[in-house]
């Protein structure tokens, strides 16, 4: 008889990846903020900072949901991935629409900040993950 795994008890790699991304955001965010400030002034900088916060919360929430449900059941993880996508998309929309008329909000740096931060952090993380797939915390050697 073949045993089929129905839940995962191992380390929560999603949390490690999300934490890694948050750490990598620390040196990258000032550059993004400066660029936004050069283009759109203080409002642009505040909007870009808000975009970075949205992306980091979104990734952390995604990781937390997947890690939590994987310990319960793989089927629940499947549901959490799909409904989590809807939920997080709704939360991102809510977070942006809630502030769109605020005086400190510039929509262009906010929108560009969302895309650039999300894709930038992912690509940066991918560089490390592709070098050491199962251990995302390891740095690749240069030699």
């Amino acid at each position: 008889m073949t045993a089929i795994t129905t839940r995962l008890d191992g380390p929560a790699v999603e949390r490690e990846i999300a934490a890694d991304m948050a750490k990598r955001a620390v040196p990258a965010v000032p550059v993004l903020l400066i660029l936004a400030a050069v283009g759109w002034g203080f409002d642009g900088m505040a909007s870009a900072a808000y975009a970075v916060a949205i992306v980091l919360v979104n990734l952390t929430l995604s990781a937390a949901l997947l890690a939590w449900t994987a310990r319960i059941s793989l089927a629940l993880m499947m549901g959490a991935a799909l409904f989590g996508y809807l939920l997080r998309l709704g939360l991102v929309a809510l977070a942006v629409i809630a502030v769109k008329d605020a005086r400190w909000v510039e929509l262009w740096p906010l929108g560009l900040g969302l895309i650039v931060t999300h894709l930038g952090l992912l690509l940066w993380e991918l560089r490390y993950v592709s070098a050491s797939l199962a251990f995302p915390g390891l740095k690749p050697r240069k030699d």
Partner: protein
Amino acid sequence: MALPALLAQVAGEDQIAFGEAISAGFAYGLAAIGPGIGIGYLVGQAVQAMARQPEAAGMVRTTMFLGIAFTEALALIGFVVFILLKFA
């Protein structure tokens, strides 16, 4: 009410605003459908792989999480286009 009938009721500048709102809505809606299908397929295959080969679960979960985030970027781009079309 059908779209052509609704369109006939509004005129001039209202029609342009109406068109912008409809386009922005479609842009966001369509941009969210693709990633939804993609994430469903991606996670389904990952769950199957983990159930069959639990010793590879760490690697599968890593690639699955990054895959979800990359797929989600498409929806995020659609949302940004919607926001910029509608409010900028």
